[in-house]
Each structure stands twice: as structure tokens, then as C-alpha cells.
């Protein structure tokens, strides 16, 4: 029985966007039933980290009914802003499906989504494959992958599939260390420490709404800049990149920029409380820091 639990953490999302994504998912289940690699059951679990419930019981029941032919829909209101790592751990606690799929709630999948993403796991008897990752469009992630083997060094959890047993073996995401960013890089690298491969599936496109400015650049919010800085410091520490950690910490600590200073202060707080993560990969077999990135990128975005 191939069963998949799809998990998305919500935070004040637009309902029309959620519905659009669910419609594409239900359609992909329908198309999958005509294929050779049929997924027997798909459950979508929403974990709501919004300040107020996005769905009341009546509306939830209506949505469950609307999609019941193809999907089982579950909803959990966290009553706290869990961030992504903790949210997915909470949703994954009692996952009984064979596979788990982590995705952003507004991602729209292609019709042959399930066949494409699950195919590498089929007949993978030695269980050497850890994660498969879909290709985001219209703006593709620029991290490198091997064009022949499709291996890559980490998978973004905008849309990534893995075995539930591996999730449990890894104790899920490191929610104590990472709130919003790099939980997926850390998860991928720990998966690779188990000896498993990460595969990028370029012929499995998913639409992930993003826009760039008129000069083709990202437009990060202040919160995104902060959590990105916080995570970069903790990644360097946790993955034993000592020189990088010292350089980042010193730069952040001495910066005139309040956001960077705050990231360094957060690290100091964790250290004082004895809550820093255990350091891993001291021989640097998995972790790779390339400039500001966690693997080589094809281009700057």
C-alpha cells in the first residue's frame, strides 16, 4: 500500500490559494489512478500556526466533503506560531502513511505529480534514496544538481517527499534550532549522514508563486532577512564550519545593522541557556558552505 501524508503549515493564508492548490492535488490523484504507480491513499494535513483559526468546523467539513473522492483532509489549529520545523514535527507525530510530503500550502502541482515524485522510490530496495524534490516554477531554485544522476546536496521543503520511517529515524526537523529557514537544509544533510541520496526531479514541475523585482532580484522582508541571518549562524555552528561561524558571528556582532546584531544576540542567548545544538559532521563529509549558500549555485538570484 503506497500512502502519502502531505503536510503544510498555514499562517494567515488566502483560502482561495489553498483551495486552488488542493484542486491541483485532487486532480493529480485522479490522474495518478490511471498510472502504473498508483498511490492508494493521500491525506492532506494542515497545521494552522495563524493567530486565529483559518477554518471553523463547518467550513472544514465542507472542504473535506468537496475533496473526499480523492483526498482525506485533516486540520490542526496549533494556537501558536510554531514556525515550519515545529509545525511539521507536530503534524508528523502520528503519521501512519508510508511517505511524507512537505510542501508550501500554495504550491500547485502538475497532473503527473505523484508518478514523477514517487517513481525513484519504487524498486529502490536498498532504500538508498532519502528525498525527492520537485522543481519549482516559474522561478527555479538555482542550486546545482547532477544532470545525469539528478543528485543534489539538499532539498527545499517547498515540495519534498521522503519515507516516514526516515523522518522518525531522524526525529523530524530540528525545531529547537531552526524556526523558519534552513530546517530543510539541516534535515537533508542529516538524511545524507544516514547514507541516503537526495534527488532533484526536474521533470516534475510545481507552480510556486514568487515574483522578482524589475531587476530580477529577490525582495526579502525584514523578518526574512532576520531569520535567514539567525539560521546561517546556527547552521555554521551545528555543522562544524568553525571558521565560517567565527567570521559570521564576528561580523554580526560588530555590525551596525540591528538585524544582524539581533541574530548574534539570539545565538548568545542559546549558548547561555545551554540550548545550542549538538555539533555534527566534524569531518565535513556532508555539509558544504559555498559563499552564502549551502551548495554550489548555478547563478545568483
Amino acid at each position, binding site marked *: 500500500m503506497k500512502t502519502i501524508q502531505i503536510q503544510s503549515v498555514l499562517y494567515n493564508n488566502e483560502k482561495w490559494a489553498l483551495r*486552488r492548490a488542493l*484542486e*491541483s492535488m*485532487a*486532480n493529480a490523484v485522479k*490522474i495518478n489512478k490511471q498510472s502504473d504507480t498508483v498511490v492508494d491513499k493521500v491525506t492532506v494535513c494542515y497545521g494552522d500556526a495563524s493567530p486565529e483559526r483559518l477554518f471553523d468546523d463547518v467550513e472544514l467539513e465542507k472542504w473535506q466533503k468537496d475533496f473526499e473522492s480523492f483526498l482525506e483532509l485533516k486540520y490542526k489549529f496549533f494556537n501558536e506560531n510554531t514556525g515550519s520545523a515545529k509545525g511539521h514535527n507536530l503534524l508528523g507525530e502520528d503519521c501512519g502513511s508510508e511517505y511524507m510530503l512537505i510542501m508550501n500550502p500554495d504550491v*500547485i502541482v*502538475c*497532473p*503527473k505529480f505523484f508518478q514523477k515524485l514517487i517513481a525513484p522510490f519504487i524498486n529502490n530496495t536498498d532504500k538508498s534514496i532519502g528525498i525527492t524534490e520537485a522543481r519549482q*516554477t*516559474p*522561478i*527555479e531554485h*538555482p542550486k546545482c544538481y547532477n*544532470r*545525469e544522476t539528478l543528485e543534489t546536496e539538499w532539498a527545499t521543503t517547498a515540495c519534498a517527499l521522503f519515507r516516514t520511517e526516515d523522518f522518525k529515524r531522524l526525529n523530524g526537523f530540528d525545531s529547537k534550532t531552526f524556526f523558519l529557514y534552513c530546517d530543510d537544509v539541516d534535515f537533508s544533510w542529516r538524511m545524507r549522514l544516514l547514507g541516503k541520496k537526495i534527488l532533484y526531479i*526536474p*521533470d516534475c*514541475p*510545481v*507552480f510556486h*508563486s*514568487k*515574483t*522578482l*523585482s*524589475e*531587476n*530580477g*532580484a*529577490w*525582495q*526579502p522582508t525584514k523578518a526574512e*532577512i532576520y531569520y535567514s541571518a539567525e539560521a546561517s549562524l546556527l547552521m555554521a555552528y551545528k555543522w562544524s564550519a568553525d571558521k565560517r561561524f567565527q567570521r559570521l558571528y564576528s561580523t554580526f556582532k560588530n555590525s*551596525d*545593522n540591528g538585524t544582524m546584531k539581533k541574530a548574534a544576540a539570539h545565538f548568545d542567548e542559546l549558548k547561555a541557556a545551554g540550548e545550542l545544538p549538538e555539533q555534527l559532521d566534524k569531518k565535513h563529509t556532508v555539509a558544504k558552505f559555498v559563499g552564502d549558500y549551502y551548495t554550489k549555485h*548555478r*547563478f*545568483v*538570484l
Partner: protein
Amino acid sequence: MKEIQYELTELNRMIAFLENQVDKESEEYKIFRSYMQLQKKRFIEEAADKGRPFLSIITRTQGKRPDMLTETMLCLTGQTDTDFEFIVVGHNLNDTQNASVNELIGELPDWMQQKTVFLPVEGGTRTTPLIKGFEAAKGKYIAVLDDDDLVFDNWVASFKKAYENEPGKILHSYTLFQDWETVSSDLPNTPISVQTPSSVFCRDFSISDELTVNSCPLLTLAFPSYAFNIFNIRFDETLTTTEDWDFLMRTAFVTGVANIPVSTCIYRNWLNTENSQTLHSKSEWNTNYHKIVERFKSTPAMYDRHSIETRINSSALSCLEKPVNQMNNKAQMYYDVGDGFSEANIVKTSASAEKEWTNCFVNLAELGEFSAIRIDPDYTGNIALKDFKMRIDFDDGSQQVYDSGNIITNAYKFNDLLVFLKNDPQLIVCFDKPKLVNKVECSLEMLSPVPDAVIEHLVTHRPFIYRILRKIWRMLKGALGK
């Protein structure tokens, strides 16, 4: 309810102008008035017509790249505004290709299938499926997506917003330009992006610029259907390339263009697969080019308000003789306040009050500390800067002067020239720590286009191996310097 602006298209603006000019008793007045009343009626009826979609999206396909068509369809599935119909025009498909395209349509979510029409077309040129698609379109506006195009979720919504402000005009948004390849021989139909998206097509339509260069890819445009259906402005089926440019301009001559200064899509430039550049010979492109520009010369045209303003502003600064001793009004300065250069952080150029300095960027201290600045002397390439100097006045009273020797740039350095052959010329200065800047001034001579002798020297005498050796030399020099 917002009043319908029916007098904004160039033709209607002209007729409305004449209506006000002529004697109210004249026959001409009656004709002009009657025409404007008809226009008002048509525009109001069209806006109120809920039975028609806002946009008809036409995608012509030869059925050769189903995976890419799937991705184009996926992008349409993600639109925030779904007020569209989707017409897939299958051109000269064999049975297998026909079945493949039908299968892709059959795999769409139900709501998308209901919006989708499959229209097989046999014969003609590559322009024929466009004409058939336009004839079948029910939308108030018509846009064309190739079967490998990518659009953001705001593509339809941006067109619609512009239509509500300036109905009747061609709608033109920005596109990012990006290099792509196909992944491998095992995945010959699967794309991979290989370069940072460029903003070369992120600029307003200008009728004078566009008369000689096609710089508005088709996916950036939505055409009012009345121009096709009522004024019979049609694609030229004899053109085998740039038929879109010809059609755009002949429509723009009548309707004008409303610009949408937002990027809504990605124009893919294929590096290792067939594209229109590789499918058609240079002589074919040349023949079509000359045919089109000859037609422009003989077609009545109305110069739209935006283009006139741009042209006058540009001329006022750049004078008519070449070389000019300053950058034109397209020059702008980007400043980095710690999170990179972005469109949110731009200062436009103005003429300097000091004689020695020609362009200046002022009142900068109030924008905060800069970690870097970047000056783009123009949008396009094929320019050279001679005797370039830049002076930066810092808030602490100090000054720093840069020239071609110590500035970071994507130009070729040739004698005293900075030569920009490609679009998006850039001059960058990075500071060792964030600084408050009061003023930036530049002095230069701008040569446009780049003199033939310079191009010949760069192309003929600087082969690839020379550039590699020079790069190695620079690296060695840098290492030795340390």
C-alpha cells in the same frame, strides 16, 4: 462606478481633439462626434459584458515539447485572476502529437479544462495559427504565450488592472530574460535555468525605440480584440520571423500602449536547443526586418503621449550631436542599504550644476547608509564611455574620485573607453563599510553606438583565448599583490 475612459486610445484621442477643434456646425464635427459616441457605446458595452472573458490566451504548439506545454499550463493554473479562456492552437500536428496535446488538456484540473479550447490548424506559416487563434478568441483582450513560456501568478491580473485604467490600448508589462538549457540527453524536453534573470526587457514601450528594434516579447503584451476584429489589423502571414513586432507596431500606431512597470513573466532564451534564432537564417531575418521597417514608413501612425514625453525628455538632456558629454535621462543609480540592489532603491539622474561634472545624483544622505552604489548609464548596450570619472561626496566631508581604472563594471576596457556591447551596462563602487553619501557626480563622453573600429578591435583582436589569459593574469596579479 468608475467612468469608462473611452477617449484614451491614440485614435480616439485624436478624433476627440479634432471634434473640439472644428466648427460645431461643420460636417466634420458631426462625423467626429458620431464616431466618439459610437466609441463610448462600444467601450461601455464591452466593459459591462460579463459573458466574455477579459483575456483570451492563445498558445500555438507543434506538439514537440509536451513537458514544456505542461509547465505553461501549470503557470496559467496558478493565476490569481482567472478571467480568461485558453486556446491551444495545434499547428500541423500528426496523429501522435494531436493525441499528446489532447491528453495534456484532458489532464488539467476541471476548472481549467472548462476554460480551454483545442483548435487544430493545418497549413499556412507559423503566423497562421495566431490568426486562427485571434479569430476564435472571445476575450476583450488577446495575449499570446508560446508553448514554453513561463508567467508569474500576476500575469493576467496585471493586464486586467491596466485595462481598467487605460481600456482600448495595447497592454505591455515587463518580462525577465533568462538563459535556459535542456537538462540532458535523458531528459531532452526538461528545462534547467542557467543564468540570473536579466532586466533587459524591463522597460516601458517607446514607439521611437521600437521602430527599429523589437524589444517587447509577445508574452509581455495583450492586444485589444477590437483592433483585430473591427480595424482588421492582422498578422502578416508572409512573415516567417518577427511577425509579432510588425503586428505590435501597426496596432500601437492606432491604439497606443499602456505600460505596466511590473515583471510578470520570464522570457526563456534557449542555449542548447532549437529556437527561432537557430531555425531561420540571417538573410531571412534581414529580409523580414527590411520588409517590416519599409511598411512602418508607409503606415499612418500616431505618436503616443508617453513616447513623445520620453523622446522630448531624452533629447533635452542628450542633445543631437554625438558623442554627447553626459548620460541620458535613462541613467539611474541603484544604492545598496545592506540587502542588495533593488528597484526599490533607485535615484534618477539630473544635470549637474558644476561645469566639470555632467550628471549628478543628489540628496542621497537622507536615504541612509550605502554599502555600495551602482550606476546604469543606459538600459541598452552598444555604448561606450570615454574619460569616465565619478566623484562621491560623503557626509563626513570627504571625497573620492573613481575612473575606469578602479571601478567595477561589466564593460570591456579599451584604451580610455569603457565599452558596453551587451545590454544592462553597470558601474559599481563598493564601500568597505556602510557610508552616508551626499552626492554622486559623473563626467564622461558617451559614444552611441560603439564605433565600428572599437568593435572590430574587441571582436577580431581579442579572441577567447586572449580573454582567458588576461583573466589568469589578473588573478595572478591579485595573488601577488596580496
